[in-house]
């Protein structure tokens, strides 16, 4: 009976997995691609509904005999992942049809990948973290290579695979050493271990290095720009939002549960990495002419901002990171969605910023949406991006990292330059050749509009969701101190 209730707590993941298997079999029976897409959306819709329900009503508890959690951060991570997947699948379908690569296997892959992400985001045991991480990564390696008849596509898949597999080795070694030191793989037990010792520290550092690989923090970022540029645009959106969210939620959980005693000692390390990531990401993004590559470097820069929250190492910092992930999902899926739309109208490598000249006036709605998403990414109020940066930086200041925050703020100001550059081409320059954009599908533009509305909504009233997030970490603590 316990098993049944465990599965009930784990419904979104189960539904996604079942959906993936169903879609896979539909493909086996040569179903039409339309049917496959519809079925995928149906399963994802149901999963999203349950994830939303869990987000608000599920209690924080441990299920599957300590292997996974439900409620709290787990529910939050699940929600972001399923939400991001839901919208990327809508965009992906349209995009892949546009570029004539709409393979039926893509949909089960995305579903399995989402399942892996959920497992990762809900894990409370290093074994689960490992399995979830690998499920996610292996699916992403394959998804990165969808454009397999393009040199760019397969090369990005190969690069991603080699880098990913390499970091998996370090990740495992870290787990192994931690296991040896503490005698368990459970995050709780590891968190209770206080003796230190070289094996323990070796394990912690290897584990964190592997995580830095997965979230693409400098100096472990070198795969990111290439992979993000070579992958299909909407899959890039998927990797950089849902994938990154899952890794980050897992990292926050590991820091919060497994390393509560040492997480404050990691502040210096995280600060250094954050500074490098923010500076390098932003500086290199400035010189990019390819919008997709620019967004890839900007996503590295955003990892830097997120690391400021981790460096703070406080409840406020971790909560800010979670809010940031939510906001980042809205705006980045949206931005990549519009980029994919522009790209789809031309050819697969239509991404240079010059080719955007004057596009803002054709299909003005898309131009406005891209502007909203880019302003939000740049952290201009009133957008979710601003609030996210505000929370992260204010957590940093509260933790006394004023210098780090000033670097972050300046980096963020620099980032405005390259986001604005896109808008300069969109609106301020005349297009050289006559480009006609086709009308986007209703569902495509509706989902983008919805994401933009959410971006603005969480820019204006973040109170509700911040309250929810703060509740995940603190029993008592800050909640009582509030007026």
């Amino acid at each position, binding site marked *: 009976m316990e098993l049944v209730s465990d599965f009930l707590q784990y419904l979104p993941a189960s539904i996604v997995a079942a959906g993936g298997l169903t879609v896979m079999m539909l493909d086996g029976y040569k179903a039409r691609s339309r049917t496959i897409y519809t079925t995928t959306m149906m399963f994802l819709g149901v999963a999203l509904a349950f994830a939303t329900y869990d987000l608000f009503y599920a209690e924080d508890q441990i299920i599957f005999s300590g292997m996974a959690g439900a409620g709290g951060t787990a529910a939050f991570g699940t929600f972001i992942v399923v939400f991001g997947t839901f919208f990327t699948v809508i965009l992906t379908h349209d995009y892949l049809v546009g570029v004539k690569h709409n393979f039926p296997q893509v949909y089960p892959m995305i579903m399995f990948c989402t399942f892996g992400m959920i497992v990762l985001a809900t894990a409370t045991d290093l*074994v689960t973290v*490992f*399995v979830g991480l*690998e499920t996610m990564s*292996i699916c992403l*390696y*394959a998804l990165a*290579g969808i454009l*397999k*008849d*393009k*040199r*760019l596509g*397969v*090369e*990005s*898949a*190969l*690069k991603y*695979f*080699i880098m990913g*597999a*390499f970091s*998996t*080795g370090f990740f*495992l*070694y870290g*787990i*192994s*050493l931690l*296991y*040896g030191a503490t*005698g*368990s*793989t459970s995050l709780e037990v590891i968190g209770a271990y206080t003796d230190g010792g070289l094996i323990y520290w070796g394990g912690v550092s290897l584990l964190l290095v592997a995580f830095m690989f997965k979230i693409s923090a400098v100096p472990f970022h070198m795969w990111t*720009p*290439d992979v993000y*540029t*070579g992958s299909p645009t909407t899959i890039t959106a998927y990797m950089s939002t849902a994938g990154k969210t899952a890794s980050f939620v897992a990292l926050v959980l590991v820091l919060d549960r497994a390393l509560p005693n040492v997480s404050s000692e990691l502040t210096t390390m995280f600060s250094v990495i954050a500074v490098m990531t923010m500076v390098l990401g932003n500086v*290199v993004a400035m010189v*990019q002419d390819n919008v997709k*590559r620019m967004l890839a470097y900007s996503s590295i820069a955003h990892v830097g901002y997120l690391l400021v929250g981790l460096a703070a190492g406080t409840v406020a910092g971790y909560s800010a990171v979670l809010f940031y992930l939510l906001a980042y999902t809205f705006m980045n899926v949206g931005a990549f969605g519009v980029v994919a739309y522009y790209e789809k109208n031309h050819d697969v490598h239509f991404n240079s910023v010059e080719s955007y000249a004057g596009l803002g006036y054709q299909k003005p709605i898309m131009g406005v949406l891209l502007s909203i998403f880019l302003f939000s990414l740049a952290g201009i109020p009133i957008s979710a991006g601003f609030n996210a940066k505000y929370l992260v930086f204010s957590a940093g200041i509260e933790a006394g990292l004023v210098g780090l925050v000033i670097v972050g703020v300046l980096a963020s100001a620099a980032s405005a330059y390259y986001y604005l550059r896109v808008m300069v081409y969109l609106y301020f320059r005349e297009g050289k050749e006559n480009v006609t954009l086709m009308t986007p599908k209703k569902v495509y533009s509706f989902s983008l509009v919805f994401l933009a509305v959410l971006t603005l909504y969480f820019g204006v009233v973040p109170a509700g969701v911040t309250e929810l997030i703060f509740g995940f970490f603190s029993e008592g603590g800050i909640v009582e101190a509030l007026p």
Partner: protein
Amino acid sequence: MVGLEWYLGVSAMLFVIGVLGVLIRKNAIVVFMCVELMLSAVNISLVAFSSFMGDVHGMILVFFVLCVAAAEACVGLAIVIAIYRNNITADISKINLLRW
């Protein structure tokens, strides 16, 4: 009686050989094999820990690592085949289309 340190030492040595291989070899397939080497090196230390602590969890993790290794090999080899289809070599030092 062979102590735990011996196993850990061998494991570390094998892991480093694997890392070295990944970094210096150019053929994609050999690089994959070196990754497999890294994984199996970790497996040794996991099993050693598990056995010396009398705790089964480490061995179960090894079981999962085996599965993951199999899955990685499956996808990795598919990627190599896709690369060959495009008439590109598997020499990863020549995969330089993407640069910053």
